């Protein structure tokens, strides 16, 4: 053929080509749209969660305080033995003085209850620390009782009829008097972080839970980190490739997916009943969390070890290094960034685990932080669980506040993990 032309292998006519192009572009657009829709849904749900938490919890980060002048009269307090003084009288005398007019004994009791019921102990401790004020006046900012705290924050509406309201008109009138006197303030609620749990929400705090969680995580780290790394190093570097090691690998991967409550049952059966360790102790909590974190650390460490290029190992072997030297001097230091990142993420997961800790009893009502690993304690997630169940109005917002504190810790831990990963990442 003299005039043989090569026809291009595209659609034969212009309308066909246009149709193909339009279909392609539409498919591209749809793919991108699905992606954006998915991300928007995820971010939207997360946003709703955070918004609800903040809305519910922000008021717990401030606590209504009332400035009261407490006359420390000699008739109530003996300077020689201040601890045995009549502190209830000190408190009720101070409060009735603030509110003008005569009050019946019943009213006097109600007026004293505007302050938190532990006020007498606060005053007593302040005077014991500073005995020179006996005979004079001590001015303290004392937390208000829960219902007045809620009243001040507007959570108790004044419009509802008195019969169905938590505070009656008389109490509101007293409180308003104190507000007019300029004695009511709402400073930041440091007590949320530094007080232990309490029946009274106005003085309840997370310090016991934070300490308990810290001890439990410490035990978890100290147990799971060395064991996990040693197991992963053995499996990756030394174990022969046969059916037994395959079986072990499958089991470890499965363990990482076991529901955490099963580990709680295991802890209950083994640590509490067979070993006889004390119930609710951070030691037991830490051991149970360690069992949960171990598969994660093993998997993460193995991946980090696999990522070390074989050329480094060959170079080390060629130099006459023994297998143990190759691992200590070359492989582990190079895989450490990956191991650390994975460990921190595993610990962050362990921090938020509630079910296993509930089963070993770390949801007991403890009013002081644990002194050591063997003392009964709560943990952050279980403390939130307890507060969520409590009837007092103040605990509603404190539950959300507790969740926000827990999320804050998780955020910090994950941020550290990301920071470490970026700083220590190596390029061969």
């Amino acid at each position, binding site marked *: 053929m003299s005039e043989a032309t090569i026809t291009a292998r595209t659609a034969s006519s212009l309308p066909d080509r246009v149709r193909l192009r339009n279909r392609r572009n539409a498919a591209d657009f749809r793919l991108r749209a699905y992606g954006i829709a998915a991300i928007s849904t995820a971010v939207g749900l997360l946003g709703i969660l955070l918004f609800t938490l903040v809305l519910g919890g922000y008021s717990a980060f401030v606590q209504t305080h009332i400035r009261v002048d407490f006359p420390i009269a000699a008739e109530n307090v003996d300077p020689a033995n201040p601890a045995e003084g009549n502190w209830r009288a000190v408190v009720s005398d101070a409060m009735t003085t603030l509110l003008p007019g005569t009050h019946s004994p019943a009213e006097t009791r109600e007026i004293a209850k505007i302050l938190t019921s532990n006020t007498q102990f606060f005053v007593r401790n302040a005077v014991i620390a500073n005995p020179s004020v006996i005979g004079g006046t001590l001015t303290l900012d004392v937390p208000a009782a829960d219902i007045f705290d809620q009243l001040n924050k507007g959570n108790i509406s004044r419009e509802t009829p008195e019969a169905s309201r938590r505070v009656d008109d008389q109490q509101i009138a007293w409180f308003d008097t104190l507000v007019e006197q300029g004695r009511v303030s709402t400073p930041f609620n440091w007590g949320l972080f530094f007080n232990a749990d309490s029946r009274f929400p106005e003085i309840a705090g997370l310090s016991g839970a934070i300490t308990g969680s810290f001890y439990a995580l410490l035990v978890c780290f100290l147990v799971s980190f060395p064991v996990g790394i040693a197991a992963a190093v053995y499996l990756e570097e030394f174990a*022969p*490739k046969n059916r037994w090691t395959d079986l072990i690998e499958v089991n470890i991967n499965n363990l990482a997916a076991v529901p955490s409550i099963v580990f709680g049952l295991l802890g209950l059966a083994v640590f509490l009943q067979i070993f006889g360790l004390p119930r609710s102790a951070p030691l037991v909590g830490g051991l149970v969390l360690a069992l949960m974190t171990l598969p994660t650390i093993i998997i993460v460490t193995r991946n980090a070890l696999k990522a070390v*290029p074989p*050329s*480094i*190992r*060959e*170079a*080390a*072997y*060629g*130099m*006459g*290094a*023994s297998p143990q*030297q190759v691992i200590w*001097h*070359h492989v582990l230091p*190079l895989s450490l960034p990956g191991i650390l990142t994975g460990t921190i993420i595993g610990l962050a997961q362990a921090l938020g685990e509630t079910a296993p800790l509930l089963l070993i009893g770390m949801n007991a009502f403890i009013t002081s932080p644990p002194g050591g690993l063997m003392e009964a304690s709560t943990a952050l997630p279980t403390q939130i669980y307890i507060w969520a169940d409590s009837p007092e109005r103040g605990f509603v917002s404190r539950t959300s506040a507790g969740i926000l504190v827990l999320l804050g810790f998780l955020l910090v831990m994950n941020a550290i993990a990301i920071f470490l990963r970026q700083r220590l990442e*190596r390029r*061969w």
Partner: protein
Amino acid sequence: MDMVAGKVKMTQQSVNAAMNPTDMLERPIRLTARDVTVHYGAKQALHGISIDIPDRAVTSFIGPSGCGKSTFLRCINRMNDTIEGARVGGTIKLDGEDIYDPALDVVELRARIGMVFQKPNPFPKSIYENVAYGPRIHGLARSRADLDEIVVSSLRKAGLFEEVKDRLNEPGTGLSGGQQQRLCIARAIAVGPEVILMDEPCSALDPIATAIIEELIDELRENYTIVIVTHSMQQAARVSQKTAFFHLGNLIEEGVTEDIFTNPANKQTQDYIMGRIG
């Protein structure tokens, strides 16, 4: 020369490197291998290799890809031990001692037989630490001053010292390819080996870096026994005194380099050199 006129040019360098046959026969033998076989699982990679490696000379292994020359090289310093499922048969003796004797410490063996790999693989540490690692783990230096001396002399012998003397604390991975390979050679020399094995040391380098390394090999052969695997026949001709031709896991022919390239006895060798196979 007439048979291979177009294929291999005997340059001045290789004339210097070349040795006459009587010289080669008189050299003491450092390594002997007898009937060495290697199996990877069920597959046999080497079929009964027997060869003598002369002392303080460069022996090159040539052959097409996959012919087993690297496998045999790795048998000499027992690097195949690190490969799962590799089985080595036959005997290899260094100075009369069987290196596969179970009583022999493989770590000490690898200090006597050093290795340089195809792709330069310095440790992700400083240049100083790279060279100092070997002497440290083998306890060759009694003090910091001793160690400094070993590092400096190894870098000098590898022809790298002048270029890096001001930056010994910088990472070894920051050097150019050719410098990295010389660092690896310095690292191998630092433990004071008797034999240096080189597995295609120049294949990842540019021609100028290659020329520098070949010159270095020529200097090193005065003090070390060198075995080099190369897929470049020109390199083998330039650098080595003895050449062995491998094909499909068999040792086809071995002898003085000049003889192999000018007058090979075996037809397969001739085909390879003429470029008809491989």
